């Protein structure tokens, strides 16, 4: 697959499940997929692991959306910078719903094989989300 095709695959995979299209996960996530995410103590495994992850956050943020801001690709590796937004209306990590809207940024490095994503390394502003939700104190200005 070419770099542009790989970018399109990872863009769809980043954005569409949050609009309710879970089929894109079956379409583009390999059975032996492994996903690394700072908010998940164990790696996500396979399409089922990705769906469970998305469902966890969609339960907490029913209007959650991911917007891809920028992508770069080289061979079978794609880097995606994205922004996530959503209103906290369900329990998450023990935090009761706050009604607050949150915005976080993140970067995902995706490895593909034959048009399917086999591994991803994601770093996103988990601490920023916790601060926005009031679960972690906002650092005082000095």
């Amino acid at each position: 697959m070419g770099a542009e095709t790989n970018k399109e695959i990872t863009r769809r995979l980043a954005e569409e499940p949050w609009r309710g299209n879970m089929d894109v996960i079956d379409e583009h996530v390999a059975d032996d997929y492994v996903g690394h995410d700072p908010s998940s103590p164990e790696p996500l495994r396979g399409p089922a692991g990705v769906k469970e992850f998305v469902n966890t956050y969609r339960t907490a943020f029913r209007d959650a959306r991911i917007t891809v801001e920028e992508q770069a690709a080289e061979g079978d590796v794609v880097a995606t910078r994205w922004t996530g937004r959503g209103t906290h209306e369900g329990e998450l990590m023990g935090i009761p719903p706050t009604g607050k809207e949150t915005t976080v940024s993140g970067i995902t490095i995706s490895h593909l094989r034959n048009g399917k994503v086999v591994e991803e390394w994601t770093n996103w502003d988990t601490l920023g989300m916790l601060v926005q939700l009031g679960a972690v104190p906002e650092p005082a200005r000095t």
Partner: protein
Amino acid sequence: MQPFFEPPHMPCEECGASVAREERDEHVCDQARRLDYVMFRLREEVEAFDQELVDYLHSPQGRFDAWLAERERKRRC
């Protein structure tokens, strides 16, 4: 001096909208959103009130008060 860590966005205290730090001074709350946010935060209180009202209306005092109110309503018609 900037603190070590500061999220670029924070929810507005009044309406809950996610506001970029550099836009905080210009932010104006959408009143519909503000109302939704306040009601969301009061949801447990509202639910508790609903239940308290149901309990009251089924209590002897509540039933009598309802009967009295109905009698007054009919008297005024």
